[in-house]
């Protein structure tokens, strides 16, 4: 039997990488896929923020002389049926995807947290009512509910964000409620009560912070699905209205017709959607492993 090299074992387990830059490099080595995901997400956010600098043309400017031009040195990814530059539209499309992704995840998660916290902490009839509402919202597939919501609200960016956020509420509130129910019974809550702390202060200052890890994990997982839902809604013509360059919308413009004549119109927006969602999924998985070890698979 060979002797155990304690130094290398400790190093492998990350014992001396507890904080700062060392910790980051340790995690990056341990979660390679997650690091790739983070890298994709950083590029995605950076593209959205500096779209005006990266895009080579105005994404909305129509150029009838260069309709359906195939990719070349001038139009890197070709042009669409209005002669608009596909590269510039994809770059600007990152803004819409990011806005919808972050906007609807944040909105859905915050409402879900409030409902879950109230439901789990107050219990009784509040819980009963919220539970039934959750049942109702969960009985409809995400896309169906989002479709009806966005049809009801009308196509616009804020309405799309709301339409996608509402179906997220039950998922988040269920998780927060389950966590709150478990936390409520723990001694530190009892201690807080015994020193006369108000219920709302206990709920927000003591219970809520302890539900943060699962919440962050859940929100990251939902980010990808909100981006996908926006793409689907816009693809069906019920999300972001023309002329804004939404990736889903770019595919919808009778994409099936262009399959023959202009494949670049079909390929590139799809690559953009898939990459953005893939990045958030990779990162979300690693985050779950780090923050929520019980779920580690």
């Amino acid at each position, binding site marked *: 039997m060979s002797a155990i090299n304690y130094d290398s074992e400790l190093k492998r387990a990350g014992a001396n990488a507890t904080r700062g830059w060392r910790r980051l490099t340790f995690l990056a080595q341990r979660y390679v896929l997650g690091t790739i995901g983070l890298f994709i997400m950083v590029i995605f956010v950076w593209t959205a923020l500096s779209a005006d600098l990266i895009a080579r043309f105005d994404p909305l400017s129509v150029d009838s002389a260069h309709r359906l031009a195939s990719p070349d040195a001038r139009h890197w990814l070709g042009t669409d049926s209005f002669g608009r530059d596909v590269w510039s539209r994809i770059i600007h499309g990152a803004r819409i995807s990011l806005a919808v992704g972050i906007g609807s995840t944040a909105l859905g998660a915050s409402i879900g947290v409030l409902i879950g916290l109230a439901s789990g902490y107050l219990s009784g009839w509040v819980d009963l009512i919220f539970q039934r509402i959750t049942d109702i919202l969960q*009985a409809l597939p995400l896309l169906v509910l989002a479709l009806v919501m966005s049809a009801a609200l009308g196509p616009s960016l804020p309405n799309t964000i709301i339409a996608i956020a509402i179906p997220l509420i039950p998922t988040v509130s269920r998780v927060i409620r389950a966590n709150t129910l478990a936390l409520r019974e723990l001694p530190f809550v009892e201690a807080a009560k015994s020193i006369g702390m108000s219920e709302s202060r206990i709920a927000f200052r003591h219970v809520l912070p302890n539900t943060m890890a699962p919440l962050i994990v859940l929100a990251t997982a939902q980010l990808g699905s909100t981006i996908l839902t926006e793409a689907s809604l816009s693809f069906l013509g019920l999300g972001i209205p023309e002329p804004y360059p939404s990736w889903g919308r770019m595919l919808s413009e009778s994409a099936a017709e262009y399959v023959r004549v202009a494949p670049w119109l079909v390929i590139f927006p799809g690559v953009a959607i898939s990459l953005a969602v893939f990045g958030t999924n990779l990162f979300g998985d690693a985050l779950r492993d780090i923050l929520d070890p019980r779920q580690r698979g």
Partner: protein
Amino acid sequence: MFAYIVRRLALMLVTLVGISIIIFVLLRIVPGNIVDILFDAAGFVDPADKANLEKELGLSQPIIVQYLQWIGGLLHGDLGYSYVSEKPALQEILPRIPITARLAGLALLFSASIGIPLGVISAVHQGTRLDYALRVLSLSGLSLPSFWLGLLILMASVSLFGTMPIFNPNPQTWAEAFAIYAVPAAAVGFRSAALTMRITRSSMLEILRQDFIRTARAKGASERSVNYRHALKNAILPVITVIGIEAAFLIGGLIVTETVFNIPGVARFLVEAIRWRDYPIVQNLVMFIAVVVVVTNFTVDMLYAAIDPRIRYGD
């Protein structure tokens, strides 16, 4: 058990009534109804004609009366008339259901027959390159929009065969039926196969750590028998839940895929009806979807108790 089933059925009823109210109200806060659309298209507006048409379609009545009429009709099997085709909504919806059901069934078959074995392989080879590759594959399955996958398939078909599959309600040959149903079903099923694989993997990993697996190995059971007979049998429960939930939620993927492949099923019909503000079709279709989801959830829970003797409800 009996009390539990009664309670569940009562809750299902509450949920469905809740959905009917929400959908009904949502559809009626939409700015502009079908009358507006028709009159906009015609280019002129005679207020008297418009009021007449609204009255004829029952849109001028108070919303509560409209709701009660719809529910009353629903209980008698009368779903109202489509505003667009003016045919009974039931006649419009019923013939489209088998098409979507066939697609959904095939997609689930695809998802289970690909997802479960790959999930087992991934779990058994945990930490190896094969596991990594399969995990990346399943994550990419969750990241590809299914309508884009459909478009890529169309593109491949154009470059390989020079043509696209066109939907034909009565396929003549086996190959045609395959192109019409199996290909779109695979495009939808890819995502749920990825999900099934993930769940199978994590469920298998949990089971493989348990004592009875070690016992099985110790008594000399073959690797194959341990993985598939001992472990998978115990790991399958969460997988069934996911497949069950996916069965109902597949409709999201079917909506876009039926649109891409131009398949006249209920899922694409829902989008068309929403665009046309064809309320009778939309509200009945959404109710239909909700019933499918609620009944599937219930069935999965019952299946749980049937498969796993440790699970007893209501004791």
